[in-house]
C-alpha cells in the first residue's frame, strides 16, 4: 500500500481513538488527503470556549513535506491572517520534521493561540493592536471567538444579550465613541472603521494620532 495513504489512515485512526486531546479530524470529500481538523480554544485565553476549524491539505510528498494548513474559522491573532486564515508557524515551513503528525501539528496550532509571536506576524494590523493595547486586543479576540467560533458572549456577563447582530466596531477592536466622533463629521461608518483600524487608533495611540491625520486619511479616495 502507498506509504502516504497508510500513514494518513493510521493518523486518522489514532486521532479517533484518542478522546483526551479533544482534537477532531473529518474528511472534507472522498479523498483522505483533504481534511478538516478542529480543536477547542485553549483555556485561560480569549479563545476559550470556541471551537476552531482548520483546513488541512496533505501534499503528495507527505510526510517529507509539511502539511498545508489554514484556519477556516476566523481568528483574531497576530500570527493568523484575519482575512485568509493563513498561518505563520515555523513547523509548517522550514522547521517541519517528518515525525510530526496531523495531531501534533494541530496541538502546535492550539498552543500558538496561547502564545502569540507578534514579532513575526502574519497579520501586521492585528500584531500592532496586540502590541499597543493588550486588553483591547483580548477583548476583540474574545468577541471574534464569540461571533465566529461559537464562544461565550463577552457581554453576557453584563446582562445584555448581543442578540446575534454583529457589532462592526467591536470586530475591528475600536471604541464606539471614536467611530461616532468621526462619523458625526459626515464620513461613512464603514470607511471610518476601516481607516481607524488601519491607523491602529487604539489605546495610547489615540493621543499620538491627530484628528487632522485621521481626516486626511478619510478624505483619500
Amino acid at each position, binding site marked *: 500500500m502507498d506509504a502516504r495513504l*497508510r500513514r494518513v489512515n493510521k493518523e486518522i485512526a489514532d486521532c479517533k481513538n484518542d478522546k483526551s486531546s479533544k482534537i477532531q479530524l473529518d474528511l472534507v470529500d472522498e479523498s483522505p488527503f483533504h481534511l478538516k481538523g478542529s480543536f477547542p480554544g485553549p483555556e485561560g485565553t480569549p479563545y476559550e470556549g470556541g471551537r476552531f476549524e482548520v483546513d488541512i491539505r496533505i501534499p503528495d510528498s507527505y510526510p517529507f513535506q509539511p502539511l498545508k494548513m489554514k484556519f477556516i474559522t476566523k481568528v483574531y491573532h497576530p500570527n493568523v491572517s484575519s482575512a485568509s486564515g493563513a498561518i505563520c508557524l515555523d513547523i509548517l515551513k522550514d522547521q517541519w520534521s517528518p515525525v510530526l*503528525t496531523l495531531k501534533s501539528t494541530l496541538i502546535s496550532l*492550539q498552543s500558538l493561540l496561547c*502564545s502569540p509571536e507578534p514579532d513575526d506576524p502574519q497579520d501586521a494590523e492585528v500584531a500592532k493592536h496586540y502590541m499597543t493595547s493588550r486588553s483591547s486586543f483580548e477583548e476583540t479576540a474574545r468577541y471574534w471567538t464569540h461571533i465566529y467560533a461559537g464562544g461565550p458572549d463577552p457581554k453576557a456577563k453584563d446582562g445584555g444579550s448581543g442578540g446575534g447582530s454583529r457589532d462592526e466596531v467591536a470586530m475591528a477592536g475600536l471604541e464606539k465613541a471614536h467611530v461616532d466622533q468621526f462619523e458625526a463629521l459626515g464620513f461613512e461608518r464603514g470607511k471610518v472603521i476601516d481607516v481607524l483600524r488601519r491607523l491602529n487608533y487604539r489605546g495610547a495611540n489615540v493621543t499620538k494620532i491627530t484628528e487632522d491625520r485621521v481626516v486626511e486619511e478619510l478624505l483619500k479616495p
Partner: protein
Amino acid sequence: MSDDYSDDEYYYDEDEDMMDADDGDSAPSDEEMDMEVFDNDFKLPGKARKKSYEVDSEPLSQAQVERLMQTDIEHISGIFGVDENVASLLLRHMSWNKERLIEKYMDHATAVSVEAGITPKEEKPAKAAASSRAGSSSTGPQRSTRSSKSSNKLKSPSPAPKEDEPYTCPICFDDTQTRTMALACGHAFCSSCWNAYVTGKIREEGEHWIRCMAEGCGLVCPDPFVREALGEDKATWNRFRELLVRHFVGCNKNLKFCPYPNCTYTVACPAAASKSALLSIVPTVTCGASPDHKFCFGCSIETDHRPVICAIAAMWLQKCHDDSETANWIKSNTKECTKCQSTIEKNGGCNHMTCKKCKHEFCWVCMGPWSEHGTAWYSCNRYDEKASQEARDAQSKSRASLERYLHYYNRWANHEQSAKLSMDLYKKTEQKMEEMQISSDLTWIEVQFMKKAVDEVFKCRMTLKWTYAMAYYLDRGNPKELFEDNQRDLEKAVEDLSELLEQPIEPEVVPSLRQKVTDKTVYVQKRNEIMLEDTANGFLEGRWQWNTSVPGLE
C-alpha cells in the same frame, strides 16, 4: 608598451603587425582548421604574451573543484584529527572559511560540533527549553530512542543495529521494513523513508544541508550517509555533489559558477576577487565548457562590457534606464524656467508664461522676463536684449548637459542596434558563402573570410558601444582626446568593413574582395586591440579622470 599613444606608433612599431598581416593573407588557404579555433587564428601571435585587457583566469571542471574541496577537507581533518566527513561538515558549516573554523574549533570544539550537526545536543533532563508551540505529546515514542542511546561517538554514522523483533517505522508505520538507518543521534527510521526524505531535500529544495528527520534534532547527514540513503539513485547523488560544489564556489570569492544554463563549470579568477580590483580591470572570462560561455566575473550586467569597468557600466545602464526616453521627450517638448530651472511644458495658450514654482514671468519665445515686454509683447522684438541673452545662457547650460547625454546615448544605442543587425548579416553571409562555393571553384575554407569578418564586426561594435558609455563619464583633457582618437579610428575601420560586407558578391570579384576584406579585418582587429589595451592600461595606471564620482573610486 611605449608611452606614446599616437596610433602610428602602435600600428607600425610592432613586429606583430607584420606577422598579423602575413597570417591574414595566408589564413584562408591554411590547411585543415577547426571552426572552434578559427577565430583564434588571427590572434595567434598575441597568444605568447598576455594582453593588458585580458585577465588570468582558469576554467575548472566540477571534478577539479571537488579536488580543491578535498584538499581543504584533508587539511582540516589532519589538523583536528577528525574523520574527513566530519571535516567536510565543519567546513560547510563555516562557509569554507578555514581560518575562522580553526579559531572557533580550537576554542569551543564541542559547541562547534553541535552547531555543525555532528554531535547531538546535550540532553537536558527536563527539556525545559523546548518551545511550547511544538506539541510534544505525539512525538513521545520517537523521543525514547534518543535517550536510550546515550553513547554517541563522533564517528561516521552506521545504520542502527538491525533488530530481529518486528519494527514499525515511526514515519511510514510500515512494520514489514527490516532495514533501518540512523545518524549518530540514534533516531532510527526505515531506509525507504530516508530515501524519500533525502531525495526530496536534494531534488526539490536543492539542499545539501540535510538534517535528521526527528523533530528538533540538529544532526546533519554526512556524505556517505546521503549516498547510502539514495541507494542506486546515481542522478540524485550527482545532483547532491553539484550542490556541494555550488556551495563551495559560492563561499569562495576567487571562484564563480558559469551562469550559462546547465553548465557545470567553474571559473577561478583570483585577480578579480576583490571589489577594489574591479576598479582597474574588466574580468571577462570564459568557462572551459564552450568558448561561447563568456561572462564578466565581476558583475552580471552584460557578458562582455569591455573596455569599461563594472562600476561605470552599471552607472551608465542605470542612467539609460532612468533617462533616455524621458530625456528625449524633455528635449523636444520643454524649456526651463530662466529663474529656477524647473522644466516647463507649454501645452497651449499665450506666450506669457508664469512659472508654477517660482512665479517668474517670462516670454516663451525669447525667454526674457515678461516685464520688459510691456505692451509690445506680441511681436516679441526683444531678441537681443541683455536680459534675455543671459536667460538663454542659463537655459542652454542645462540643455547642453542633456544634449551631451543624448549624443553618447544615441551612439551607444546605435552600436548595439548595429551589432544585432550584424547577426542578421551573419545569416546572409552564410548563404553567400554557400553560393560562392557553388558558383566559383573556391573551397569551403577559402570562403570563411566573410564569416570571420562578421564576427570581428560584431565584437568591435560591442567594444565601441561601451566606449561611448566610458566617454560620457570621462573628464575633458588629453587622455580623453587620445581615447576619442582611438575610438574614432576603430569606428571608422568598423564602418568601412561593414560596408565591404554589404556589397554584392560576384564570382569574378571574389579574389579581390577577399583580399580587401581580409586586410580590413586584420586592421579592424588591430584597432580593437589597441582600443582595449590602451583603455585597460589607463585603468591600471589610474590615467582616467572622471567627471563624476564613481562608486568605489576615491
